[in-house]
Structure formats: C-alpha cells, structure tokens
C-alpha cells in the first residue's frame, strides 16, 4: 500500500513475465537433472555445464522478481491518474517482446507435449545405419564387468587389443541389447540391432549396429527393444593394418523382448 501523496509501486508485467520465464527454465533444467531425465537429451559429459545453468537461471529469476516493481508515475490525488498514467503502458510487453517470450516458451511446450521422445528406427535409417565397424565412434569406456554393448563388439572388430581386453573372440556367445531396425535390403530373418552413440547431445547421435541373422529374427518389429543372444563372428583385420569395412554378425539363438533401458543411448 502506498502512503498518501507517495507514488505507488506496481509490478511490471514485462519484468514479471521475464522472471517467470527464467524461473520456468531454471526449474525445468534442474528438474530434468535431478530426475535423470536429462540423459534423454544430453550425454553425462555435457551435464556439468547444465548444473551451472539451472541454478543461475533460478537465481536470476529471483533477482528479476525482486526488481519487478516500477514506480507508478502520475499524481495519486488525480482521479484520472490510473487512466492517464503513461509509465504503466510502457510496462506491457510489446508485440516483438511477446514473440520473443513465445519462442522461449516453445521448447517448454514441446517438452510437456512429448516428454519421452526418443530416436527410433526411422532416425537410424535417416542417419545412415550400416553395421560397418568404422562407424564405431572411438573407444568405449572402461569395461569392468558391465554388460557387453554393440559399441564394445564394433570396437573389438577393429582393435584386437580391445577384443583381448574384454575377452571377446569370434565364435563367442554374447547377449546384446538394442532396437530392431530393418533396412530395405534385409531378408526376413535379419535386421540391424542398433544403438545410438551420443557424444554431447542427441543431435550428434550416431547409429551403430550389429547385423543379426537367424530364424528368431522373423517377425521382429522396428523399434522393439530386444535382447539378442547368439554367436558373434567378424572378419578380423590383419594385425598392424588399419581395418576397413569390418562387419560383425550375430547368429541368433534367442531373441527376447525387453523394456526400454534407463540408459537409452550409449555415451
């Protein structure tokens, strides 16, 4: 409440909207980090920067809110001052400012609309999934008893040292998890068991795959998450030479459906 003969303070709609937007973004980013949902979009190696951004956005929203009062110019003793006050009108967001706010809200709308988006078989085909070992984007992380992945197998095909390290040889029985992706030339009993390798964010995801063959593959549908168990084989690169076009192939014994894993992407 303003005292008599003292200019009152009002909250500026523009500043309140800005504070609200920063608060929404800060809360969304922090919420995604705390819930683990951020790994649907970003690789863990990108997260430290996001851990900084979330709290900064929240803190700035508080500062903006605390500074959202503006002086209400005009003579408070004048009955018409509410109508004639010019200052207030300047505090309403203009059309260009509203379009900026709308653009900044758009990602939050998309996130609410499609909260569990994921790359699937179509994305793998668009990005050119092949099953070539040279698609392996570098060495996998430490192999300390974790489950074998498509990336481990692909990297083992081009690095005898890594194959030895993880104890993988052609003819071994392995179980791999991935999504089913068919390409145009696939026979009925074959598909590409695919995972996406993400370096920083899903925009840079590279589909990597091991070709799977065998009767259990018949009837597998695109985008199904499956555990493929069978015998792995590949053409070994001669020692000391650079491998080119090595392809691993899994001859299926069993194919079981499974739930989408917590770590959808390989990082």
């Amino acid at each position, binding site marked *: 409440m303003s005292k008599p003969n003292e200019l009152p303070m009002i909250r500026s709609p523009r500043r309140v909207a800005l504070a609200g937007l920063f608060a929404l973004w800060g809360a969304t980013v922090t919420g995604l980090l705390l819930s683990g949902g951020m790994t649907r979009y970003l690789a863990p190696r990108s997260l430290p920067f996001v851990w900084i951004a979330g709290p900064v956005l929240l803190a700035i929203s508080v*500062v903006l809110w605390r500074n959202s009062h503006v002086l209400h110019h005009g003579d408070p003793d004048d009955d018409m001052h*509410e109508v004639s006050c010019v200052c207030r009108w300047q505090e*309403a967001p203009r059309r260009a400012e509203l379009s900026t706010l709308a653009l900044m809200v758009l990602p939050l709308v*998309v*996130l609410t609309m499609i*909260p569990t*988006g994921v790359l699937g078989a179509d994305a793998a085909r668009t*990005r050119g999934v092949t099953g070539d070992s040279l698609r392996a984007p570098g060495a996998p992380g430490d192999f300390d008893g974790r489950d074998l992945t498509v990336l481990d197998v692909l990297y083992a095909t081009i690095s005898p040292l890594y194959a030895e390290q993880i104890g993988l040889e052609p003819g071994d029985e392995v179980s791999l998890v991935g999504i089913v992706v068919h390409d145009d030339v696939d026979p009925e009993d074959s598909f590409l068991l695919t995972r996406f390798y993400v370096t*920083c964010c899903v925009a*840079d995801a590279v589909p990597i795959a091991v070709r799977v063959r065998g009767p259990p593959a018949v009837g597998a549908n695109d985008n199904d998450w499956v555990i493929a168990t069978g015998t792995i084989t590949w053409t070994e690169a001669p020692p000391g030479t650079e491998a080119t076009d090595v392809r691993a192939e899994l001859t299926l014994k069993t194919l079981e459906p499974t739930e989408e894993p917590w770590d959808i992407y390989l990082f």
Partner: protein
Amino acid sequence: MSTDTRAAERQAQLWRGPLALVVLAGLAITVGGLLGLREAQTAQAFAVVFLSIVLEALPFIVLGSLVAAAVESYAPERVTQMLARMPGPVAVPLAGLMGTFFPVCDCGSVPVARRLAKKGLHPAGCVAFMLAAPVVNPIVAFSTFVAFQFRAEVAVARMILAYAVAVIAAWVMSPIAREMLSRPIRGSVSEHEHQGSFHQVFAHDVMFMGRYLVVGALGAALIQTFIPRSILAAVSSNIPVSILAMMVLAAGLSICAQADAFVAASFTQFHPAAQVAFLTLGPNVDLKLLAIYGGAFGARATRRLVAAVALPVFVGSLWMAAFTS
C-alpha cells in the same frame, strides 16, 4: 463508465499479452495430446533433437551471457583502455588465439564479442575472437583427436584452418565490424531497461540469443528428422562437390564444436578434406548461428560474414585435398 472500472480494465489489458501466451501454450499442449504426438515416432525424433540442441546450447548461452555481463559491469577501466589501444594488426591475430585460454561455445561467443567491442577491443579483433574461440581451443582439439581414432592430422588441420579462416574473415569484416557489433537489438524483453546492471545485461543477452537459438534449433531438427544423409553418398567421390556438400550439411545439422568431430568421422566415405570443411564451417555458420547473426548483426553483415567464412573454408579445404592427394 466509472474511473475505477476503466482503471481495472486497463490493468487487465496490461497483462493480456502474457496471459494470452499462457493460454496458447496450454492449448498447444492439449491439441498435441489429442493428435497423439506423444506416441508418433517422427514427432518424437523431431522433439528430442530440437530439445537436445536447445538444452545443450542454453547453458553455453547462460555462461556466455554471464561473462558478457561481467565484462559490461565489472571489467576494470585499466583493462578496457589497454584493449582499446591495441591496433588491429595486433588485436586480430591475438584475439583469434584467445579461445586457447578462454574457450566459449559458438552461441556464447556472440554476446561476449559484442560486449568486448563495446569495451573498446578492435572490432575486427572481436570478430576474430567470435569465430576462432569456439574451434581453436584445447577442448575441441582433443575431441577431434579422439573422434578420428587418435590420428592427429585432422585435429591439427582443423585448428590451423579455423584460425586462418577467423583471421581472414575478421579482416574482410573490418570495414563494417564496428557498425555490426554495435547494432541495437530489438525485441528483447529487457530492451527498455537500463543497461549496466549485471542481472539486466544478463537477462537481455539470454533472451536475445535464446530466441534465435530456438529458431535455429527448429530448422536443424527438421533437417535431421526428414533429410536422409545417404543423399550425400552420391557426391562423395568428387572432391570439390563433396567439400561443398559437407559444408551444407554442417550448416544444416547445427552441432556444437565439441561433438561435431564424431559425426564427421562417421562419414568414412568422404575425403578428410571434406571432413575438415565440415568441422571448420559448422561452428561458425549453421542454422542456429545464422538466426543469431541475423538478429544481432543484420542481414547485410550476416551475408558478408557467411561469405567471408565459407569461401576461405572451401578454398582451404580444396588446397588441403590437393596437398594430401
């Protein structure tokens, strides 16, 4: 109509715009739900790519805006005077190397360059910093080294070409660099507020960069969702055409410099020179950056900047291809 009623109506009108936005957002979410977008595979792929670009770039915009706000509000006068005294022939090559000690992402480098120019650093030096810092830094050099199976040639070629392109482009832009970097920004929600206060400068820069980031991310997500990369395979044997194709791809995909090497490395059918062209152009010219440049510098300066970057990248890559063949 009484004065009270009119005042109340006008009070409501002040909030009409923000409230309309909230209603529109709610409506969009409801309609999206009714259309079943949550389950549609194409919509999912589009959404996840769009959001991942925004979520990845936003922290860098926040960090860049923090640095820019700190430069604006707290840079000591002694330092800014020293920067202002630095002549162009010294400022440009030095600014091109600043990313080695002060790495910023491509989105974050634009506000920092604008604030450095405002503080008196030679405008062409600011352009050199803006173009070089996202690429010529140890983080990007290491990620390129790893992505190309620990072969140093591509990482070294990328650093050299990116630095040369930044310096050349800075000189090409120098006649209009001052005007370009000091261009007033319209439409940012805090534009009418006083500049100088840390949080206001920060909010201004985040809003300004953020809206163009969203526009660019929308374009990149559309390309990533609907255009198959296999169409590039047809041109991979012709080196000049393959270099051009990889440059166009880099501009369309809008991947940040720390990660783009892993994507470039997956195009094994392309000549390394074409991969280096992809790696050098992408962090300087892509859809999200074009939107940001357009808003910050205007259409004319953006066209000139794109040409000043793209031509040296193309010529440098061709020379590299000739040199290595």
